[in-house]
């Protein structure tokens, strides 16, 4: 098992940005009313956000980062790390992080790179930035995570179209010698890669003249090769069989109980998965933080979006113990324990 433990590093603030364009699942036209209402009840998602064609994941992260830097009053010259975790970069190359280094006005002495992860992005990203800052006393870094999943999803695929949503986020991290840092455990199982995948468009299956030809997989599922495809049953089994036991063992390793965690913030997969995980781990409703109903599954950004939207005004005053679990595409998953200390309240930003 891979474990990262870092002390003396603090999270100074978290912000999130979503597109203004709100889409309601009740308005979905490709299903009967009955099937639609059953799906909405099962996935627990009523509305989602879809970015217009001229707004990217990079734009959403930039908006979140600008507001965060303004709120904290950080000098841009002080920032030495910029990491973006996304699966929907602005370009195939270069990485979006270097583009954002310039657009955010950060110095050229700031290192910047992308990480390609989705549902597990936030705990992985925190562990990477905190590990790097660990050798930079006084150092400051920004972790951006965000995705424009609407770019990948077929509107005629009932298995994905009603679930995924767009968002970006920014987290300010500082080696102040005082913070509680992070304990992180990460896992991978590539044997399940095909359970959540965009097959076409990379080097394995390059774009060709047939890439955009639509095909019907089964009733209600029509897509092309550049769309995201998901086997919901496999993802459910993965979450229960592989992720839940690692959260249990993580708590045991930390020698803490479920009751000692203030809030559990899991990747917002869908209600049927998150509810089963909650039941198996015996997490109380008031500890389980959800934003699924109004923001859907925002992929990489789902954990920070949920923190900002649901805990934003609750974690401003006191110190809170947060257990994060990101799991999904890869298959990749990671669990992290962090402690927030009187974070500034930054309401979610609409772009």
């Amino acid at each position, binding site marked *: 098992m891979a474990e990262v433990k870092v002390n003396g590093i603090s999270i100074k603030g978290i912000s999130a940005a979503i597109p203004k364009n709100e889409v309601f699942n009740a308005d979905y036209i490709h299903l009967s009313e009955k*099937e639609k209402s059953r799906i909405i009840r*099962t996935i627990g998602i009523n509305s989602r956000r879809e970015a217009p064609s001229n707004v990217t994941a990079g734009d959403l992260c930039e908006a979140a980062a600008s507001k965060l830097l303004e709120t904290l009053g950080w000098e841009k010259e002080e920032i030495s790390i910029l990491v973006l975790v996304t699966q929907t970069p602005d370009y195939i190359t270069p990485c979006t992080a270097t583009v954002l280094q310039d657009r955010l006005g950060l110095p050229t002495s700031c290192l910047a790179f992308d990480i390609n992860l989705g549902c597990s992005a936030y705990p992985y990203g925190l562990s990477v930035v905190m590990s790097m800052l660990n050798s930079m006393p006084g150092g400051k870094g920004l972790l951006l995570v965000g995705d424009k999943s609407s770019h990948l999803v077929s509107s005629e695929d009932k298995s994905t179209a009603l679930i995924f949503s767009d968002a970006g986020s920014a987290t300010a991290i500082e080696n102040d010698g005082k913070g509680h840092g992070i304990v992180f455990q990460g896992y991978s199982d590539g044997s399940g890669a095909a359970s959540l995948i965009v097959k076409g468009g990379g080097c394995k299956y390059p774009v060709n003249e047939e890439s955009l030809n639509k095909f019907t997989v*089964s*009733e209600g599922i029509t897509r092309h090769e550049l769309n995201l495809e998901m086997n919901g*049953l496999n993802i*459910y*089994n993965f979450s*229960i069989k592989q992720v839940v036991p690692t959260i249990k063992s993580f708590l045991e390793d930390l020698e803490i109980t479920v009751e000692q965690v203030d809030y559990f913030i899991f990747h917002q997969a869908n209600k049927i998965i998150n509810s*089963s995980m909650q039941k198996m781990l015996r997490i109380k409703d008031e500890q389980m933080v959800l934003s699924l109903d109004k923001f859907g599954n925002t992929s990489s950004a789902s954990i920070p979006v949920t923190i900002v939207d649901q805990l934003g005004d609750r974690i401003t005053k006191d110190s809170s113990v947060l257990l994060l679990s990101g799991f999904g595409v890869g298959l990749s998953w990671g669990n992290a324990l962090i402690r927030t200390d009187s974070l500034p309240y930054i309401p979610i930003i609409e772009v």
Partner: protein
Amino acid sequence: MDLKTFTARVAVEFEFENEDTNIGPSTEFKQLESWSSMLALILIATLNDEYGVLLSESDLKTIETIEQLYDKVVASKSD
């Protein structure tokens, strides 16, 4: 748990799709018009949440009737 109560519990999920559905132990549930990938997911989650048994997609492929599903759940619980 017995076959009768198990059948009644599972029938709830099928009757939600179509209230005229008449579910019994010998019903070949995957042949029902209402059978879908969503219903498969709901069924798997119900069995996990209420009986503590996690079945996979390949398990479902080998099961045809409600009684076979019951037998699988009973066998998995005793493993």
